[in-house]
């Protein structure tokens, strides 16, 4: 029974990773950039959610929607200011810029606000114990899982059924050809950043309600782990990010359950290195031959 409970915890944690990983994977798929600042968008989302719950007295879902809107705009601003001028620069230059943006958000935030942590108000979501077949599950976990699943279904719908989704898929397949076909590549990239950042913001609010403690540097480790999740599933592949996130969350909970909770953070990176060495295209990726 203990094991099943740990699995459920793992899935809740994994769904947070999955939401962040989706942004990573979409951005990587379209501009081939590891957006290091994505973890910090997640952090900003957590804080926007916190302030909209405490200061504006919103309940969970309005706060979630407001946060998603704010982080979407935030993501687009980051893209327009920092990444757009580097569209044709080398990959390394773009990567270094991403690191710079990440540090700027973290320390800019501390500079203006201070580094003290905040505690999410309890009771944003009902916290009852539901017992099913002898396993007691926190109703929060179920809420979180449902919210994430709904967001992922909406994402799948947007990517596969709408015009902007079609444009995104086209640009990620071949940006030059998409441009020739009359797709506005810049707007499509901005839309990708907006959607990815909105998901990260949602993940931030969910993280805050689940773990209650938020701080300006909280985005670093979940951000890196979400990237691991994206690589695990095959970077650039949307279902891969979901599965990778859930898998990573479950693995982490199982490691904690086995009594090695201090090694939890290391496990994610060991998974990363193993997957990069043995299966570099990820679980869902196809191996492509490199052409010169």
């Amino acid at each position, binding site marked *: 029974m203990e094991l099943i409970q740990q699995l459920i915890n793992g899935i809740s944690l994994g769904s947070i990773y999955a939401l962040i990983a989706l942004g990573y994977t979409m951005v990587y798929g379209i501009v081939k950039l590891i957006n290091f600042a994505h973890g910090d968008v997640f952090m900003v989302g957590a804080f926007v959610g916190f302030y909209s719950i405490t200061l504006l007295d919103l309940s969970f879902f309005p706060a979630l929607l407001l946060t998603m809107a704010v982080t979407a705009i935030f993501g687009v601003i980051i893209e327009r200011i920092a990444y757009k001028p580097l569209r044709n620069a080398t990959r390394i230059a773009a990567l270094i810029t991403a690191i710079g*943006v990440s*540090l700027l958000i973290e320390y800019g935030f501390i500079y203006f606000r201070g580094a003290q942590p905040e505690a999410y108000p309890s009771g944003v979501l009902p916290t009852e114990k539901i017992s099913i077949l002898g396993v007691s599950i926190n109703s929060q976990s179920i809420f979180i899982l449902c919210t994430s699943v709904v967001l992922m279904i909406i994402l799948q719908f947007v990517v596969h059924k709408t015009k902007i989704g079609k444009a995104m898929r086209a640009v990620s397949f071949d940006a030059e050809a998409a441009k020739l076909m009359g797709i506005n590549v810049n707007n499509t990239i901005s839309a990708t950043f907006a959607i990815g950042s909105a998901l990260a913001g949602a993940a931030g609010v969910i993280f805050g309600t689940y773990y209650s403690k938020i701080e300006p540097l909280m985005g670093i480790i979940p951000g*890196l782990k979400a990237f*691991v999740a994206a690589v695990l599933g095959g970077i650039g592949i949307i279902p891969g990010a979901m599965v990778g996130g859930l898998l990573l969350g479950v693995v982490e909970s199982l490691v904690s359950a086995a009594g090695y909770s201090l090694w939890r953070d290391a496990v994610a990176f060991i998974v990363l*290195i193993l997957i990069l*060495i043995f299966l570099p295209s990820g679980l869902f990726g196809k191996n492509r031959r490199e052409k010169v």
Partner: protein
Amino acid sequence: MTILKSAKGFWLSILLSIILFAIIQFLIIGEYLNGFYINTIFFMGINIILAVSLHLIIGITGQFSIGHAGFLAVGAYASAVVSMKLGLPFPLAIIMGGLVAAIAGLVIGIPSLRLKGDYLAIATLGFGEIVRIVFLNIDYVGGASGLQVSHLTTWPWVFVCMMITLLVIRNFTNSTHGRACISIREDETAADAMGINTTYYKVVAFVIGSFFAGIAGSLYAHNFYIIQPSNFGFLKSFDILIYVVLGGLGSMSGAVVAAILLTIISTFLQDFPETRMVIYSILLIVMMIYRPQGLMGTREITSFFKKKKSVEGGPKDDNQHTVA
């Protein structure tokens, strides 16, 4: 004639460095400098070693590694264990720090250097984190509370290690092996096609880089009274990365200048760590947008004193490209 000329430059730089050493040694012995300035000078030396060792990996060989603090940590802990736990003399501790870090570089380099670009970056970042967490969980070295280390680092040691690092990496760059590494940076596929064993050279550069990072780690550990795993997080890796990127990917003197400048800046902003990081990050972003090749590009300081004549072989002085 040309041999004579380069020899002249060599003896000149030896002479200049001895004078520099003597001046600072005189200032320290004569107690003209207080502890704060001495510490800053030590940091400068250590940061120069770190910057130049990472320069070999990123700037010369073009392998984007952002886990350099991991090797620093390995060197620091290895040397601290040798000097504190085993009670062996300090020089041995320095060498052991370097050797253990080099072994770590070999172990991590062989599998991960099969990766390219972004993936290598992330793998090395992951490695750096794993090292930190491993030290956090080993009770023998004190876990999270850290390991007590006595203060053994002195100016002659810092200076000697720094000069050896500079000399080895400069000579390596100008040797056949260094040329092979540069060819990997410029185009790995082409280098492979020309018969260069790319994996071998990448690993060699990685191991040499981590060896010197380990040396820097030994000096770093014995400059503090305590070392903790939290000193070696990825922010430390980014610090080192910034030296190399700011100085110019591919320019050793650029890395040295950037390390000196940024050490001074961070010393002045010691009490305002947020301001320091905000300045660093804005510097990085603006640099990448307006001058992605860094301050010096791939040029060296000495090239400013030479007449504009491209040197036979080697990287062209007007090379505008950063690492491909």
